[in-house]
């Protein structure tokens, strides 16, 4: 069933119950996100898709459309809020784009560009997190993890359904973990999938380093905004 909602002052028709972030992109309004994947269950971890719904700031991936919704996306304070959240993610880990294999196909970087981030307003932390390269196919570069939980929820052992990736500890001590035994059972296709859905350069396919020259990389050919608006997903 459809209903009328207001999106940045414009009246639009939207399906009741559909995630607001999808409705917005269907109407040409790009809302950046780093955890949400269209068609998959909402994770609501990165908060980068924050908008204002009837006066309250909410992550638009978590909000199903309902009647009479008034949604603001492009208000200056919201634009700055989303940018600030991306800035948090950049300083919390070590996002050294010049030396990262994922550069050019990294969603965090691409979303940084879309939100207009030039620097982080928050202090850079330079955390020390140990890398894990024990598994045969995957290199886990922990200091790039943004805890989106895509890998935790969407990559499971195909035989048992067990978690291959998981989060250890809590708060600032959180870290991404990998079950080496299960990871070594992963098919090349699944490894590629895990590396692809990782929005940063944390899950790295050991067979794939700097695979494309600068200028020809994923988001240089087509920006993340264009991909989401035209192709519905960022792939």
């Amino acid at each position, binding site marked *: 069933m459809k209903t009328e909602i207001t999106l940045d002052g414009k009246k639009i028709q939207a399906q009741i119950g559909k995630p607001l972030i999808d409705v917005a992109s269907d109407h040409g309004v790009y809302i950046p996100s780093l955890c949400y994947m269209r068609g998959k269950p909402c994770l609501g971890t990165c908060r980068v898709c924050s908008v204002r719904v009837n006066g309250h700031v909410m992550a638009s991936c978590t909000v199903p459309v309902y009647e009479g919704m008034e949604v603001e996306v492009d208000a200056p304070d919201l634009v700055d809020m989303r940018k600030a959240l991306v800035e948090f993610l950049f300083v919390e880990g070590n996002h050294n784009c010049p030396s990262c294999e994922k550069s050019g196909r990294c969603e965090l970087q691409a979303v940084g560009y879309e939100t207009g981030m030039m*620097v982080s307003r928050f202090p850079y932390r330079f955390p020390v997190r140990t890398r894990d390269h024990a598994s045969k196919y995957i290199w886990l570069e922990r200091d790039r993890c943004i805890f989106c939980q895509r890998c935790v929820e969407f990559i499971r052992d195909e035989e048992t359904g067990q978690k291959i990736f998981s989060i250890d500890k809590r708060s600032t001590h959180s870290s991404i973990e990998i079950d080496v035994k299960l990871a070594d059972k992963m098919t090349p296709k699944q490894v590629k999938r895990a590396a692809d859905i990782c929005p940063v350069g944390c899950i790295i396919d050991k067979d794939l380093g700097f695979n494309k020259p600068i200028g020809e990389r994923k988001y240089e050919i087509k920006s993340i905004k264009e991909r989401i608006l035209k192709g519905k997903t960022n792939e």
Partner: protein
Amino acid sequence: MSNVVKNEIASHELPATPMDPAVMAKREEKIQVAMIGLCGCWGCTLSFLDMDAGLLSLLDKINISRASITDIKRIPKRCAIGFVEGGVANDENIETLEHFRENCDILISVGACAVWGGVPAMRNDVTLEACFKEAYIDSPTTVPGTKPVIPFHEDLPLITSKVYPCHEVVKMDYFLPGCPPEGEAIFKVLDDLVNGREIDLPTSINRYD
């Protein structure tokens, strides 16, 4: 630093042939622009030169009073715009940055190193001790059988405990990321400033690598 009190002359203080007064007068009227490098690779400075012909279009309005070409250590006079490449990795960098902050109206961090520390900041996750050990004791170029030397002398800058982004040391007004930023991006920033526009870097040329 100690060489300030020593009997030394900065390069811009050296005797030089006087300029044509008419040219000098014209220069005085222009917007003074300077660029300096701290702890970086000078790649951003090269990008500055990559503005190429774009730079020519601005020369009516700006005068570059300090750049890697002139290689003077300090700005001889107040500048409107200062570009800073590189992060802060030693006490000489701190002094230079202070000097620029005091003598520039607008100060801009250019490139990954100035913006957040960049490649030199990769040492921030190890101790200074480990760095020195790697560089001066266990280095492959250490001559076998010789006593290793770790630089520590009043004439040498002290290495800071970690590499700092410029804006953690002094206030910076604008930031231009990239490693290095394209000449086109530097030009856009400069052109906006010179023409009194708010800086607006298009998404397509904002790059972090």
